[in-house]
């Protein structure tokens, strides 16, 4: 493969013409015609389920479009599979890294080639890589294991890998979701310069308006599978973009905030624990959540939020410190959770809070199957499980083909509603939530946020961990920022400053 030869060919334009994709009766993509000019950054905006991923999967050859054509460099092409897309110079960088952590950057690059020889002449390859890197506007250390890279370096390597493979049109799928704001700016800056230099065309999938405004030349907006708007970024305002994305849908208004915080419910003092890797520690010196308030923990994923959730749910042991709920020591046993009415809503509930193979009826019964009034029961009552589940399904509008169907057959929003129904039925003193709206559509998001606010207003102490700063700003009374396993910053929501929070998330004082 002549890596250099391909790069010199420069950026290519891509155009979809009347691209339509049907899955059974559902039209996921409805006659989308979109032109991405060579050497530009083109942003693709849309809600979850708007058809963004279907569109790029059609372009990359993962799906065969029901109707419509794809033009690459002005010629109509057939892309029956991802391999042919790669041959045309189309590449994709996924939201999550596809690097081998234990290998060095150089090794990752060489093995990613389809024509990597069975025996690799490392000296020759390294020489070629050095020349390649010398031509790039940014580099990464070639001889270091990817494991030691920061998230930003990994994302840069992913982009370098695509260039090394000779790709001239890149789809970046939410490339900054695991980066700090500074890293995100740096990576997108490099991407932009590559495009301006005419080496690359980029289709940037994102839901951050800020990135669209700062980095993209043009933008297209999808809603319910249809292209609802496009234009030059300079001609549009954020408000225009938001209106295009959401349409005229009436969303549940953010619930009003009523009442004032009461007595402390959760207090964490001097807690120390190891993190996932076992190499770093988490250290929470003082954290208090009072009745009737929502405390938000902001932070980039991987800064100890998951570990804090695991400590609170009893999945991770602590080496020091005290956790108290309602003034009594709390060890996350079922009895303590029941006495103090503590409920949890972990992220990705299907994988962290449900048994996918068990039925909906059984899954929503996890909190109460062993309760008979206030006493314990030994014999399982299927009838009671069923009637409780029917009540919850009605109250929380869980939509399922049947409540006897396995939990895994429900859509994401309905799994979240089912788990919320289970955890919010009855009086709740303390609710600990992590990323409750990940991957849900706007209606489900609005409904779930309203339920959380309603719980707060009725006197529940809520601890909300979220990677979505907008969610934190909308819901919380107080904001904490978690960075490197510590609480790095605290302020009231009224005085919260987005820029300051962003800096603290990145670990800058």
């Amino acid at each position: 493969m002549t890596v250099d030869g391909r790069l010199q060919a420069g950026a290519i334009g891509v155009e979809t013409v009347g691209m339509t994709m049907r899955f059974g009766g559902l039209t996921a993509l409805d006659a989308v015609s979109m032109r991405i000019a060579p050497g530009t950054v083109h942003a693709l905006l849309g809600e979850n389920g708007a058809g963004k991923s279907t569109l790029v999967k059609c372009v990359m050859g993962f799906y065969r479009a029901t109707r419509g054509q794809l033009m690459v460099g002005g010629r109509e092409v057939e892309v029956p599979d991802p391999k042919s897309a790669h041959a045309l110079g189309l590449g994709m960088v996924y939201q999550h890294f596809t690097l081998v952590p234990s290998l060095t950057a150089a090794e990752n690059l060489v093995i990613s080639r389809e024509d990597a020889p069975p025996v690799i002449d490392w000296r020759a390859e390294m020489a070629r890589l050095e020349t390649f890197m010398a031509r790039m506007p940014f580099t990464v250390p070639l001889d270091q294991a990817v494991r030691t890279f920061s998230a930003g370096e990994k994302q840069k390597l992913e982009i370098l890998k695509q260039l090394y493979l000779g790709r001239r049109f890149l789809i970046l799928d939410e490339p900054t979701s695991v980066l700090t704001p500074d890293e995100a700016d740096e990576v997108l800056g490099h991407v932009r310069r590559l495009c301006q230099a005419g080496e690359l065309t980029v289709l940037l999938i994102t839901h951050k308006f800020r990135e669209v405004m700062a980095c993209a030349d043009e933008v297209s907006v999808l809603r319910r599978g249809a292209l609802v708007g496009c234009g030059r970024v300079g001609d549009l305002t954020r408000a225009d973009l938001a209106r295009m994305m959401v349409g005229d849908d009436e969303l549940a208004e953010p619930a009003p905030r009523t009442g004032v915080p009461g007595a402390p419910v959760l207090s964490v003092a001097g807690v120390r624990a190891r993190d996932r890797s076992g190499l770093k520690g988490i250290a929470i010196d003082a954290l208090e959540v009072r009745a009737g308030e929502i405390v938000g923990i902001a932070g980039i994923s991987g800064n100890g939020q998951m570990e804090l959730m695991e400590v609170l749910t009893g999945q991770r042991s602590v080496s020091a410190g005290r956790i108290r709920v309602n003034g009594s020591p709390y060890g996350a046993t079922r009895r303590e959770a029941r006495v103090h009415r503590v409920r949890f809503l972990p992220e990705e509930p299907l994988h962290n809070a449900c048994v996918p193979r068990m039925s909906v009826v059984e899954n929503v019964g996890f909190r109460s199957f062993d309760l008979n009034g206030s006493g314990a029961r030994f014999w399982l009552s299927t009838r009671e499980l069923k009637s409780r589940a029917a009540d919850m399904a009605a109250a929380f509008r869980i939509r399922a083909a049947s409540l006897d169907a396995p939990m895994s057959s429900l859509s994401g929003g309905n799994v979240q509603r089912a788990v919320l129904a289970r955890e919010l039925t009855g009086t709740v003193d303390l609710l600990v939530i992590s990323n409750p709206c990940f991957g849900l559509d706007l209606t489900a998001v609005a409904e779930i946020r309203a339920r959380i606010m309603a719980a707060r207003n009725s006197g529940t102490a809520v601890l909300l961990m979220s990677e979505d700063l907008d969610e934190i700003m909308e819901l919380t009374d107080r904001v904490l920022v978690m960075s490197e396993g510590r609480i790095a910053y605290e302020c009231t929501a009224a005085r919260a400053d987005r820029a300051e929070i962003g800096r603290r998330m990145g670990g800058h004082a």
Partner: protein
Amino acid sequence: MGRKRGGIRPSDSSLAVLARRAEAVAVPAGALLAGLAAFSLFLLLLGKSPAEFYALVYKAGFGTWFSWQNTLSRTAPLLLAALCVALPARLGLVVIGGEGAIVLGGLACGALGGALSGLPGAVAIPLLAAAGVLAAGVWIGAVGALRHYRGVNETIASLLMAYIAIALMNHLVEGPFRDPASLNKPSTAPLAEHLRIGDIPGWDVHWGLVAGIVGCLVSWVLVERTTWGFAARIAGGNVRAALVQGLPVGRLVVGFAALGGVFAGLAGVFEVAAVHGSANASLAAGYGYTGILIAFLARHNPLAIIPVAVLLAGFEASSGLVQRRMDLPDATVLVLQGFTFVAILVSETLYGRLRVFTPETWGIPR
């Protein structure tokens, strides 16, 4: 992209219920047939007639009252050994060392038999059974504890501990516990006549069959109809979900593993007290390993273990006749078991994929 669904339907129609239930029967039954078909090809390669083979298996396993009694005698330890796989499996543990628990259960019973021979049978037999059951329960319970508290792979640990148990038995029956009168086959002293467990009246089958069937029924009720069983199913299905619910996962893992060991130990007790009369190397007869196959065929459902164990016991009962009549080595039945087991493991990938068994996909176009 949520697929469009109908409104709330509180529960399944009877057809849908039937479809969900049928999956658990049809898939293993299909796998069993596929295993038998593959084995038929193997026989054809050897130049033998599959038809003759299956006719002989039927005759020797199920053809006459005599062969039924032979089959049912072998069923008893298989039922109990299968429970030693099925119960931990509901917690997500793959325990394959039931053989060790059988051996230890039998050894404890045989070793204590002499000391308790002064007591009347009605007192001594329960004590012997308790000793065997306790030893085996602790053994497999330890496998569960190693897994939960130290992260040791339970499959490997249980297999290696089975080897340790067998070596321990060999050491003890050849050394400290050896009956000097046992010359060719080192054994513990034979149990006194009044400590033996006899046959079910009118049958040539010992009481172990009843114990095994009762064990299966009790296990089914425990798993499906009690809150403990429900908690175990949560922990087995997703341990993170169980921890978030504050369920005592450690106690459940150790408890269910130990209960599995208890049943396997009971099999060893019956082997000594009802079949061999003393503990010796015959205890390691491979029932523990056939139990693995049975539990997987029964999808770890204690009720389904009963018919599957009878079927597999029939296969084992026929190995002698097959060997004599068809001039096949006695390992032939093991080959058959192997084919079936591979088919079962492959069939695990079919669950939830066949539309006819998944009512929630009905009416959604492909």
